[in-house]
């Protein structure tokens, strides 16, 4: 019990890890059901009748159930898998270890922030078991639709609200810890880039999540108390005139995206930080342009608050507003480009070791580039008019959130697994998992751009209804097969994870010959992390320093700082 309700940041980080991996698997299963319907519209899947007698009677999916599946797939992946993995897991586990602190500034608040998360997950997923089924208005929950759907939608609102509080508690903790609890000598400019990224993320969370919370409360009122924050006069639903008046439909979109666009950066910045930490270790070279990457994170964080309405170019908001948001959206591509070129600069003239974590980090760079470049299409307001709400967008977001965030997460897990559990993961199995994941990921996501260019809308249960989409069957089936194989491939990761947990070779303190503070303590680190508080003498990426016996200089090694911070 004491282990279960621990205030140790490492235990909390691992609790986030295991819960979020379970949610990741659940979200993946939902995606495979979606792909079944898209590959073979209306084909029965008999065993599913046992799990969803109303959603899939006789194993044949009904449209309402399809809408629930993509709503819950998006919500589970974004709110319950990617954010808890990147921010909850790596934030909690790494911040104290990387800055030389014994624990978080507020350990109890930290424990509370974890325990609100499974509660939120349970409430959101409870929608599947209530009258009318789970939420089905998309993860964006646009009213008026989201006010017409009953108990499952209310579960969704309440669950996301609870999760918002968890995020806010975490963010307060991260900021306080990073600002106040750094070891002697750990100046801001000697912090690993993961810490810069997590600090930026925490600031974004703290500023944006309260807006989401307020917005959700307003939607909850519209859903349950008969208020009209988002509902104008004159709505006729199922032949009945609704009594509402005075609300604004677009208000929800502005408020929702004011949180949810920064949330996109909450879901990518930590992964950028993680791979900025992994690349130098396995290129045996200092990170190229440390300050440029750190400040690019801050720039993305700042600009991230000025781009939200690019989700609304075709909503009927003033086209001049569309122009200004096009400008900010184009500009936010610049700091991402800066980071990408600096990562390439890090590889340039390195001596690259192709370990499993390094492969995932390299894939992050390669796939994030596709995600980022494809974003430029929809930044252009006229092009967006055609591709908005098509599969082009779905492709773009999956290249960022899977190609980017999830490869970053796999990189992070395989990189810090030895520290977390004291044992090495199997590298051969890891490489198989990596290559198959990369192939099948592209097999499903890249054709989405083609579907979008052909004009296939997102969130449609049966595209064969449309003459202009009828020829897309073979492509959709190929994508679905890739999706199932991608799901199957993840069993390799699960097997490797649990096998290595018990049978992996002992890791030692510093198996990757890395420089940062977490590698100077035992694997796994004891309670309190460090026997004595470490003192930091140099930056986090001192690899291949000329004239040294070893090709890396730990941050705790005494001597003058070559960079002079």
């Amino acid at each position, binding site marked *: 019990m004491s282990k279960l309700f621990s205030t140790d940041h490492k235990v909390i980080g691992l609790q986030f890890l295991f819960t979020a991996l379970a949610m990741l698997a659940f979200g993946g299963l939902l995606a495979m059901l979606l792909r079944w319907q898209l590959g073979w519209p209306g084909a029965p899947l008999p065993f599913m009748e046992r799990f969803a007698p109303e959603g899939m009677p006789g194993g044949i999916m009904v449209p309402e159930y399809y809408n629930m599946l993509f709503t819950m797939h998006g919500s589970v992946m974004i709110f319950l898998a990617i954010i808890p993995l990147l921010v909850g897991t790596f934030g909690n586990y790494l911040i104290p270890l990387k800055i030389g602190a014994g624990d978080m500034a507020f350990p109890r608040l930290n424990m509370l922030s974890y325990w609100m998360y499974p509660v939120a997950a349970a409430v959101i997923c409870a929608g599947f078991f209530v009258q009318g089924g789970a939420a089905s208005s998309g993860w964006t929950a646009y009213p*008026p*639709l989201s006010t017409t759907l009953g108990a499952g939608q209310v579960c969704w609102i309440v669950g996301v609200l609870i999760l918002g509080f968890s995020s806010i508690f975490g963010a307060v903790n991260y900021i306080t810890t990073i600002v106040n609890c750094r070891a002697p000598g750990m100046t801001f400019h000697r912090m690993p880039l993961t810490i810069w990224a997590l600090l930026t993320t925490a600031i974004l969370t703290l500023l944006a999540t309260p807006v989401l919370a307020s917005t959700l409360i307003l939607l909850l009122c519209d859903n349950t108390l008969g208020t009209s924050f988002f509902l104008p006069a004159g709505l006729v639903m199922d032949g009945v005139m609704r009594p509402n008046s005075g609300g604004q439909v677009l208000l929800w979109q502005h408020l929702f995206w004011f949180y949810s666009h920064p949330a996109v950066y909450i879901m990518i910045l930590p992964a950028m930080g993680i791979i900025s930490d992994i690349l130098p270790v396995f*290129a045996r070279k200092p990170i190229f*342009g440390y300050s440029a990457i750190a400040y690019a994170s801050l720039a993305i964080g700042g600009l991230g608050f000025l781009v939200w309405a690019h989700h609304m170019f075709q909503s009927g908001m003033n086209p001049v507003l569309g122009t200004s948001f096009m400008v900010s959206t184009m500009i936010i591509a*610049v700091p991402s480009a800066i980071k990408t070129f600096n990562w390439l600069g890090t590889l340039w003239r390195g001596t690259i070791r192709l370990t499993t974590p390094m492969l995932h980090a390299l894939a992050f760079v390669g796939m994030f580039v596709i995600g980022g470049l494809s974003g430029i299409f929809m930044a252009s307001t006229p092009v967006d008019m055609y591709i908005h709400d098509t599969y082009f967008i779905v492709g773009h977001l999956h290249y960022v959130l899977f190609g980017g965030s999830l490869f970053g997460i796999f990189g992070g897990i395989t990189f810090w697994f030895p520290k977390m559990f004291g044992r090495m993961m199997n590298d051969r199995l890891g490489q198989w998992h990596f290559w198959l994941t990369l192939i099948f990921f592209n097999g499903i996501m890249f054709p989405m751009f083609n579907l979008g260019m052909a004009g296939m809308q997102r969130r449609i249960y049966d595209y064969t209804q449309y003459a202009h989409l009828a020829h897309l069957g073979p492509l959709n089936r190929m994508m679905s097969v890739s999706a199932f194989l991608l799901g199957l491939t993840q069993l390799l990761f699960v097997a490797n994870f649990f096998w290595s947990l018990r049978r992996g070779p002992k890791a030692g303190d510093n198996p990757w010959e890395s420089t940062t503070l977490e590698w100077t303590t035992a694997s796994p680190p004891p309670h309190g992390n460090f026997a004595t508080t470490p003192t930091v003498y140099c930056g986090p990426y001192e690899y291949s320093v000329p004239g040294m016996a070893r090709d890396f200089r730990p941050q705790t090694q005494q001597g003058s700082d070559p960079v002079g911070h």
Partner: protein
Amino acid sequence: MLLPPVASSIGPAIDRLFYLILAVTGFFFILVEGALVWFVIHYRQRPGRTAAYVHGNTVAEIIWTAIPAVILIWLTFASQRVWATIHGHIPANAAEVEILAEQFAWNIRYPGPDGRFETADDVTTINQLHLALNHPTVIWLKSKDVIHSFFVPAFRIKQDAVPGRGGQIWVKPTRPGQYEIACAELCGLGHYRMRGFITVEPWDQLQQWLKETKANE
């Protein structure tokens, strides 16, 4: 598989913009992925080689900040020209049609000979929109219940119909034929089948069709 055939006056400009962005992003895609693969092969760990001890380069940082910034600003200006055409002045001679979207149909209303909506000579249809060839038509969008989005892939146009607020878009079809209207904004369980049909025909044929439709009402 590139963009499908286009059938509106604004479509070619949007397609050109799409291909321009495709060319620019395609160039950077090949550059970055090529460098990534080349570095991984060329700089892989081999006996006797040591990594360079380099922390960065200010000139390089300035170059790879400035070049993307200039290109992105250029794309912004190119996009704004087309955007201004789409949302600028509606052509003075534009015909008018009103579309009231509801779960899950498009209620189409023509003003009739008097040129005014909500009068006795209005012509109404469900899901059947006829438009005049080479003549601009402004479409006034309304919604009865939830948000719908009026999407005509062949015209490259998409505009939300927002309850309490409406929406507007104008279009000049340039090719006669049959096209589809799709709903692009999730609107409930029948969203996937909220499909409409467009016929583009010469002005005279359209007038004839309006007369016949009115007679059959």
